[in-house]
């Protein structure tokens, strides 16, 4: 099995896995970073969203071979202690129900806000509409994003 060098949450790792193994399973089963979730494996739910070089990407769609030399951030690395403005906004708005989709939701929001601190409602909709929440927390996700925008634009 080939070795791959990865940079996850600013930590270098070398993993020996099949080249076609999606980043999702490398994170979860090899590195033990289970905060990134499996929801479908086919780009239909957003549960596996992580940041790669600042963009929101679906970890289930990225064979590990395509992730070398990229800067990958997962929910575990969004902040050390839950202090990222998106996490704080999610806390304040009390978003989660079961919480399963929320790492993906927060990574999608964080990626959006890292590029544009004050996105339009249309841009927010475009960025968030790929992330499903079966518990239906969309109403609070909407409020939380507004709280995060406020915090980022004092």
């Amino acid at each position, binding site marked *: *099995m080939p070795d791959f060098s990865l940079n996850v949450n600013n930590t270098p790792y070398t993993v020996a*896995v*099949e080249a*076609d*193994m*999606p980043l999702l*399973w490398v994170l*979860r*089963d*090899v590195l*033990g*970073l*289970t*905060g*990134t*979730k*499996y*929801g*479908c*494996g*086919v780009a*239909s*739910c957003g*549960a596996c969203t992580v940041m790669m070089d600042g963009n929101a990407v679906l970890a289930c769609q990225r064979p590990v071979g395509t992730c070398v030399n990229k800067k990958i951030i*997962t*929910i*575990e690395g*969004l*902040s050390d*202690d*839950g202090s990222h403005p998106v*996490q704080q906004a*999610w*806390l304040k708005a*009390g978003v*989660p*129900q*079961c*919480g*399963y*989709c*929320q*790492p993906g939701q*927060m990574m999608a929001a964080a990626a959006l806000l890292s590029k544009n601190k004050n996105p339009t409602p249309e841009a927010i*909709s475009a960025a*968030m*509409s*790929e*992330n*499903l*929440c*079966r*518990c*239906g*927390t*969309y*109403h*609070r*996700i*909407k409020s939380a994003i507004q709280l995060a925008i406020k915090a980022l634009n004092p």
Partner: protein
Amino acid sequence: MQKATINRRHFLKLSSTAAGALAIGFMLPGLPALALPGEDCTFLSPNAYVRIDTRGKVTIYVAKQESGQGIDTALPMIVAEEMDVDFKDVQAEIAPYGTLKEGEHDTGGSQSVMGMYTTLRNAGAVVKAMLISAAAKVWNTSVSNCAADKGEVVNTVTMQRIRYGELVCAAARLPVPKAVTLKNPKDFTLIGKPEKRSGLKDILTGKTKYGIDLKIDGMLYAVAERCPVLDGVLVSVDDAAARKVAGVVNVVSYKGTGAPMHVRAGVAVIATNIWSAMKARKLLSITWDEGKKNNESTEALFKTFETLAGGPPAIEVFKKGNVKKNAGTNEVTAAYAEPFLAHATMEPVNFIASVKGDRCELWGGLQLPDWTVNTIAETFAFKKENIKVNLAAMGGAFGRRLHFDFAIEAVNIARQTDKPVQLLWERTDDIRCQPYRPANYHLLKATADKKGNLVSWQHHVLGTPIAYMTEGTDTKNAPEMDGANSGFCYAVPNIFTGYTPVDFNQNRGWLRSVDICVNTFPVESFMDEIAQRLNKDPLAFRLSLLENRPDFKTGDDPGANVQSPSRIAGVLKLAAEKIGWKDPRKPNHFIGLATHSFIFAKSYAAHAIEIELLAPKKFRITRVVAAIDCGIVINPDGLLNQMEGGLAFALTQALKGEITVSKSRVVQDGFFSYELLRYDEMPPVEIHIADSKEEPGGVGEVGLSTVAPALCNALAAAGDRPRTLPIRNEGFSWV
């Protein structure tokens, strides 16, 4: 052995007896027993629900299974309220399996708060009473001179204070009181105040461990290919190619089962990692004997429903007066249909099992762990005491984990290897092979006299019963009539309701709000149709049949539910008032209303939905107003979250949720074909909570049933009435 007959009422009964007031002071195996004098004293735990240590840290063991409904917050709040501790000092933990009486872990039917309320108040009050007694001894004063205040006991004469933690050892030497006084609800300081979910920070930092995240030493991973037709059997499998995939450890097969869980025959690939298992699975070449029922379709099923609907119901459910009276006068008739639905929890179904000789250990989320253990013990000839269960948080359940087909599968797979195995259902499996909310069809007929008074009501429900699956087709438990049975809320003198079961070769199960949702859509749509026909205002028409109608019992047995027409009217009025029902409407804006009682959980909810019509059958939802009366509210923040989420869940069902079947196979295979509501489709929502001093009711399922009929009533007001869900099938579209 627990009988395999379990229906909604059955598990309600299980829960309520288990949670009876007797549980106080009940000493539990496996949980810390009362510390005895002379021993090293570190904590006080006079019952299974609460433990306080010498630093004053309180741990509350949550009997009910968390899957997003916020029960890990609401239940601890009840204990903490009676204990008079600062909620910040309280930590919630899952009550380990086996520490509670049989049935008490059971979670479903929105029963958790209702079933546990008195038990948990007592549990907290007992601890407080013991701490106060201990303090009285220290001060050599009477208990009546002592009061509890935020984690301390105060001497009300000297105003001295002692922290709870310092009293723990002295209290542990005291007998557990048999009776305690509970607070007057008007003195509640915690119950009724919004509290953030416990464990929220772990969720937000990705630390929460759901079943899917558990790693057991040496654990292998498995995925399974199942017979595409229910109750089919495996003929042969060629696994040569699959076994060549790196990481694959073994390929094993297992047989299907009949009732209660209808596990499908399967072939599982076991591998050192999930990705290898998934890849290898695709290389399996399997021959199935699909059996005779391999050519059914939902298209034919709905035709059967339609044909049978005009005939007499197979089962008479409720009869009052004579519906033949007044026949033909002012008659209104309509038929409604609703499809099969899948739970589609975001955390795909998964379960871990380990089998070593005559012992079995299980890890994962279960809503009915006792039934699971009893069935596994019986199926695999384990002694019950040799089965260890480790319950885990669930990434959504909605009734999916009332079923435990996956647990039986996991044991079947694990016993063919010497390592623990995590079985994962891929999303395709989840959408294609699960216990579906039954498809159903309704024919309603009503008559009114010349003055426009409703005289008769007939409701014929046709469905594919869940009980046929869990109990077999000879069951007596088939009717799924709630909302159109003896609890029918509107004052109509002559009523006849009946049910016709139709069997169908797909597994069925309970999905959030099951039969109440199924029946509220036709009933509340039809109420509007009648009002329209009689030229009456839909709000006034309903209220005239609800208001001034006293509460009534829905049966003779002592446990029969009580129906409260006035509370049903109350939430309807509240929703109508808040949306401005009587106000002039903007051009092209229309409002629909619907109300109901979630009778098992003693809660009532109504929706008022405003739409803007953009073109014929094309609309935007501009406002949703919900009103709920669930008695005393434990955690308003949790309640709002459930109502908001319930709206999203119900909109999925109203707009686009549908499972169809062709050649006895489910057509949909994931979120592209079984679509859920998305972020940009969530309408603005406001929720109003009725002020009530009644005992608390359940809330997890109450916010769903009135959404589809309120929406359809708004669309009807705009010109076109949908009578089939999802409404997309009738050509409706939305932005």
